[in-house]
């Protein structure tokens, strides 16, 4: 971490009402440029998040958070095929790798839209988790921002779990 960032990291940034809009905008741009697809806010989001593939990127500095992108395996495969411009994915690990990169770009694009975060926090390398049955338990006094988006008729989630 650079010295300026280290000095400022004790003063945390709190989210405001614009952040979920920024998360949506960040997702739309990434999908338009890298997946050649549009994503819309899900009109009727399911009550609970679901989907076998979750990619996560840690954020540290003025914002301590986990940026998460979750979708069905079928969606992850479709996203990977479109990113690579291929008809078929031979190895499922390519879909997981693509999900990690999408999450990385979502987190990077999101923080670039919040002027104080652009230079005020760093991103970890992405981690991809596969499996349906898990819960995220926010840290005490943490905040949770979530946007449910629709891709090819299926829901997917962009979530920011902020440490208190």
């Amino acid at each position: 971490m650079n010295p300026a960032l280290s000095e400022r990291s004790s003063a945390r940034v709190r989210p405001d009402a614009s952040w979920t809009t920024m998360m949506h905008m960040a997702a739309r741009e990434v999908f338009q440029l890298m997946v050649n697809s549009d994503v819309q806010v899900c009109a009727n989001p399911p009550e609970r998040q679901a989907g076998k593939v979750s990619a996560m990127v840690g954020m540290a500095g003025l914002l301590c958070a986990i940026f998460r992108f979750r979708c069905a395996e079928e969606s992850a495969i479709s996203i990977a095929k479109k990113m690579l411009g291929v008809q078929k994915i031979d190895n499922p690990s390519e879909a997981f790798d693509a999900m990690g990169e999408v999450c990385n770009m979502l987190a990077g694009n999101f923080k670039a839209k919040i002027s104080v975060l652009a230079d005020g926090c760093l991103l970890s390398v992405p981690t991809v988790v596969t499996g349906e049955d898990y819960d995220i338990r926010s840290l005490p006094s943490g905040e949770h921002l979530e946007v449910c988006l629709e891709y090819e008729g299926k829901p997917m989630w962009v979530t920011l779990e902020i440490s208190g």
Partner: protein
Amino acid sequence: MRAIKVLIVDDSAVMRKIVERCLRQAGIDVKEVVEASNGIEGLAALKAGPVDLILSDINMPAMDGLEFLAGLRGLENATGTPVIMITTEGSESRVVEALTAGARGYIRKPFTPDQVKQRVTPLLEAMR
């Protein structure tokens, strides 16, 4: 422009393929692509032989893009080889750090083939 040999350094195999595809879509004549998943592998690839252009991610495990840039100094096979950083970081300080360390430009993810072309073509034209 002559056909070029490119080194692409990124921990994501998918991103390496996307960068290669963008170069080809941008009309750049790529005769060979050497791939590395981090800076250590990138330096090893360069010790094995020179390339015409290096595209490197910044945020990577084992050895990140900034350490990789530092490692290029004094490496005979990398002398004069243009390096473009590809990053998700909106952080100006990281970009400035990369440019100060010798990178000739940067591309921010997400990107289009046109953006890749805009960054790469002037460097290749200067090499002619």
